[in-house]
């Protein structure tokens, strides 16, 4: 199932390494498989490697789509 979590890059280190943060927890990972990552970016981390950056625009669009898809529904009390 490939457990991977979106994590914020808080520091880019030497040798393609970086420190990421999730829920206040920090971990050192490798950026060897991705390009152009800078602090503040969110990356998907799997077994200690970033696999991709998160596209913030697309994320917003997905959230918007939730609204769109459910605009006629109301939450049960």
């Amino acid at each position, binding site marked *: 199932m*490939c*457990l991977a979590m979106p994590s914020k890059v808080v520091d880019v280190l030497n040798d393609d390494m970086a420190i990421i943060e*999730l*829920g*206040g*927890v920090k*971990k050192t990972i490798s950026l060897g498989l991705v390009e152009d990552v800078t602090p503040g970016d969110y990356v998907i981390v799997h*077994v200690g490697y970033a696999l991709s950056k998160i596209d913030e625009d697309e994320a917003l669009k997905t959230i918007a789509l939730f609204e769109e898809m459910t605009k006629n529904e109301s939450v049960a009390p």
Partner: protein
Amino acid sequence: MSTRTAYTRSLDLKNGVVEMSHGGGGRAMSQLIEQLFGDAFANDILAQGNDQAAFELPRGKVVMSTDSFVISPLFFPGGNIGNLAVHGTVNDVALSGGQPLYLTAGFILEEGFPLKDLKTIVDSMAHAAHEAGVYIVTGDTKVVERGHGDGVYINTTGIGVITDDIHISGERARPGDKILINGYVGDHGVAIMSLREGLGFEASVQSDCASLNGLIGDMVKAVPDIHVMRDPTRGGLAATLNEIARQSGVGMMLNEPDIPIRDQVRGACEILGLDPLYVANEGKLLAICPEDQAETLLHAMQAHPLGKQAAIIGSVIEDANSFVQLKTGFGGTRVVDWIAGEQLPRIC
């Protein structure tokens, strides 16, 4: 005792290490016991210096509990094996609703362990015992060869008394009862994991390890009819609630959003693929009490420093299968089964 003269040279607490002779029954052992343990734990009963401690107990039912502590690493954020060994047994005794009074301490030391670290551990035990108001009244020291231990293992066994009006036991959970916890879940396990080789992550989470007898005293005073109390240590909430469900022949329904979990604990669990409900705690208790007294109990808990984040996290339900279930924040339901074996960090 005019015995100090027998040890003309004092323990080398700076550079010394545990040697086989410290467990050999000779003068080296006697000196270690007297100058390290005796000094730290000093009390009248221990000073009897016999192979057993003798003391008077107040009236009431006697309650006794034992645990061996084998934690690695020995020192961790928020504590060490020494105070953990006191907290753990004080809690197991107190969770009966009784008052813990006396502890025994059995040490299994590994050859080569620094005496300096042993001193730190022993001092922490003494401090924790003092804070909890219990006395370490007798002990034992064994030394095992290097490669047959892990620095220090400690067994503590505690004794206390319960007054006659208290009947707290694992088989007393009844459908309708409420399930309470005194605070954040999973801190201890995550603090330990953050130090494990290979997992290495950085979190400011501290172990929650603490003696809960003060809190429990307040709880029992507020609600003498607490049905069940137990600490969710190894195996976490999941294991403890399943145990109780099985013992009482009931089911449980937890409400996920009500379970207090720190962001850092959630974060660490997400990274490692673990579930906080299975992570160990060392300063938490689960209490189950009649529904109509749950609020009273909650307020008593919240009034104590170790219960500030206390919460009602679910209810006991009828269930012939004794399942523990969880209503998720998402709106679904799942079973919180026991774990099979240990929870291992995973990638998929």
